[in-house]
């Protein structure tokens, strides 16, 4: 198996995945910081969003924000 060739291909394949995950993380972070109130401490949410990839932002989008009203 040609290692260097494989590595370049791997990068090309993985890059979109990482970029999408990064976008999700950034949107979640912006939302979290802008929100007046989150369900639970804001700092914990920020840590969750940053350190648990994919599931962290999803969890914040689903449960993090308080319903207005």
């Amino acid at each position, binding site marked *: 198996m040609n290692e260097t060739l494989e590595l370049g291909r791997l990068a090309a394949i993985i890059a979109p*995945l990482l970029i999408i995950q990064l976008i999700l993380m950034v949107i979640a972070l912006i939302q979290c910081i802008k929100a007046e109130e989150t369900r639970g401490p804001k700092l914990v949410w920020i840590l969750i969003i940053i350190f648990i990839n994919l599931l962290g932002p*999803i969890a914040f*989008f689903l449960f993090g924000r308080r319903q207005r*009203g």
Partner: protein
Amino acid sequence: MSMKTRVLMTLLRKEWLELLRSYKLIWVPLVFLVLGIMQPVSSYYMPLIIEKAGNMPEGTIIEIPMPSEEQVLAETLSQFGLMGLLILALSYMGIVSAERASGAASLVLVKPISFTAYMVSKWLSMLLFTWGVLLIGYGAAWYYTWLLFDKVELGPFLISYLLYGLWFSFILSATLLFSTLLRSAAGAACSALGLAILLSLLGGLLPKYMACSPGALTGYAYEAVQSASGSMKADAPLWCSIGLTAALVAACLMGSAALLRRAPAID
């Protein structure tokens, strides 16, 4: 345009705006994209990952057969069936109950809008969104499978997409019904997901008796994508299951409209 369609269009626009405001329009498709890409990639690199990270003694040779491209797509579908359904049901759990609780539902319904139009607009926007999101995710999986493995014909791909979409439509219509029926959003999500799990379990345990149930649709979808060149035999159980699911979807929709008419606002 008749009055009725105009009302419906306005209500649909409201639902659309709601999706945009809650950022669901952005993050749900992105998550489905990740799920769709992840499965083919991890199937492809699994042997390599095990070889590099498995801490195997020197000289161990493990032969892991590469999954076929059809198998990868079927695995992706089952991934959507788990994570995707969970995400969609959770994000739609409050579709009626939250509007009722906040009073938004009564604000809309004091206007000359029929309960049916209100419900249909919610249901339509929900289904459009679901089918779209599923297409994005599954399409990405198809493309990546093509890149890494081999091409799966368009026919089997589309048939499995349609069957899976119907299964999703059923569970989400049930979510709509439960969201109207129950006061708590969490309860609605739990009931809908419980129903999904129960039906797939029963479908797996008693395939003979459950061949007609909506839960069997997932199995038919896997079968459709795995049967070479779309030569899936379209026999009675398949059509029976499609028909029953469509009927149940309609029943859920009408049931929720009727429930809403009986009690437009809770407290």
